[in-house]
């Protein structure tokens, strides 16, 4: 039995083309970009070439791209850095209630420092109404941070509209584009974004490398201090191989974007249709259309997501329940609660996230397995028992 990987939103493998580009920087071309001799210059060129590639993928200028070591570091730096740089103007920050923990917990930290946070709600579809953001703006608002596309349900936010509102009010705007980048087109020139976070391992690049776009003129406090790397804004010997990997992965993803989106969206719709038609008491969470091409989130009534996940794994199918990052915790997903799900439905949900290695052929086996397992778990569930009795 071939394994089916349906958890691309958690992480992806490094594509062979990308790894190929990275390899020389571990071995022959291993110089430190800060070193003045030829070997250092070679590494420096690779670094600056990668910066240029990322900039052009995002419609940014080369000197607006800074490399980091993860999506989380990007979010931490952008949010803390901007909050601290503008704290003399005010200490109020606006965000949504469906942010990733890298944003959420960073804002909680800032709260302890005396910042005030307003959480704007989402509609039942998982989409923010930009007018609620406008309404939340105060005299002392300095930053708006909103996730570009959600990692659990995939919904894409009205980033253009929110950016315009932020700009109109002279408020800085950061977006966590860790799930969006490489999967939908992003052009910072068309969007009033001041800062944007991405991570390579979500688009077939390596883990442990991320980047932020920071619009020229935006002030930011340093996060990691030390040497003068990254235009003296982020210290530490650069992860040259990883950065080359990020740049090539992003470029490759965008060059294949149209064809892969079409293919993935087709598989997604097939899965959604079959799950909803063949498995009763099942809900699709989020918005079916305004969504990343590969992400689906289903709630199966009367059963619990982890059991479902483990049984699918035994059939060689990898999906996630909630977001991978929070698996240490037992709390129900704040995202699913935010779109109005009950605790029971929250715990009975799984995320299926597709990638370039998935095929239409896999769908039948998945649906078949899912049906069997959902049925088995429901037979074991005291909640389903009540329904059956009622149905009798």
């Amino acid at each position: 039995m071939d394994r089916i990987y349906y958890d691309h939103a958690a992480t992806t493998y490094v594509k062979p083309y990308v790894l190929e580009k990275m390899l020389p920087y571990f071995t022959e071309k291993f110089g430190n970009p800060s070193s003045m001799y030829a070997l250092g210059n070679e590494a420096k060129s690779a670094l600056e070439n990668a910066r240029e590639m990322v900039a052009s993928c995002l419609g940014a200028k080369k000197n607006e791209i800074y490399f980091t070591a993860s999506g989380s570091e990007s979010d931490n730096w952008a949010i803390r850095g901007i909050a601290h740089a503008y704290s003399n103007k005010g200490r109020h920050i606006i965000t949504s209630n469906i942010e990733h923990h890298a944003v959420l917990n960073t804002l909680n930290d800032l709260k302890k420092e005396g910042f005030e946070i307003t959480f704007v709600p989402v509609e039942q579809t998982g989409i923010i109404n930009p007018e609620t953001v406008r309404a939340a703006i105060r005299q002392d608002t300095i930053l708006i941070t909103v996730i570009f596309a959600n990692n659990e349900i995939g919904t894409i936010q009205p980033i253009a509209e929110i950016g315009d509102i932020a700009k109109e009010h002279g408020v800085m705007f950061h977006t966590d584009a860790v799930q969006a980048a490489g999967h939908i087109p992003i052009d910072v020139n068309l969007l009033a974004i001041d800062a944007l976070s991405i991570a390579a391992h979500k688009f077939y690049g390596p883990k442990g490398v991320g980047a932020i776009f920071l619009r020229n003129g935006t002030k930011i406090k340093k996060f990691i201090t030390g040497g003068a790397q990254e235009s003296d804004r982020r210290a530490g010997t650069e992860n040259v191989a990883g950065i080359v990997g990020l740049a090539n992965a992003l470029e490759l993803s965008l060059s294949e974007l149209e064809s892969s989106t079409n293919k993935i969206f087709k598989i997604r719709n097939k899965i959604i249709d079959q799950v909803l038609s063949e498995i009763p008491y099942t809900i699709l969470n989020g918005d079916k259309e305004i969504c990343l091409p590969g992400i689906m989130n289903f709630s199966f009534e009367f059963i619990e997501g982890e059991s479902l996940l483990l049984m699918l794994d035994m059939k060689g199918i990898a999906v996630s329940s909630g977001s991978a990052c929070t698996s240490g915790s037992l709390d129900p997903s704040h995202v699913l609660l935010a779109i109005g799900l009950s605790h029971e439905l929250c715990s009975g949900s799984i995320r299926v996230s597709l990638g370039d290695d998935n095929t239409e052929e896999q769908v039948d086996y998945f649906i078949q397995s899912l049906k069997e397992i959902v049925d088995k778990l429901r037979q074991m569930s005291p909640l389903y028992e009540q329904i059956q009795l009622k149905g009798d």
Partner: protein
Amino acid sequence: MYSEKVMDHFTNPRNTGIIEDANGIGEVGNAKCGDIMKMYLKIENDIIVDVKFKTFGCGAAIATSSMATEMIKGMKVEDALKLTNKAVAEALDGLPQVKMHCSVLAEEAVKAAIEDYYNKQKKEG
């Protein structure tokens, strides 16, 4: 993250289902806390002659339910009351720290079912 024993009891849970003529039924937990366990006992002459369960919950919840039913089957009621969550967890070769509450729930489910049995006995008696 789970031991082989847990995975075994999770994938092949023992004693699932209901007992039509159960004389002790206990249900503990709720969807908000993440797990619900319902236990059915058939008790004759103070001996648990049959036991079945239904569980809504994670792998550990299903495995601890299964293990707890195995452990009390054939036991005297008064001995079954002494079943601790630690004993269930140990019988499963341990549980992850964040999942220990499942074993507590299993202990509570057994106790709730026996209590129900005692209550019914009193009414009848």
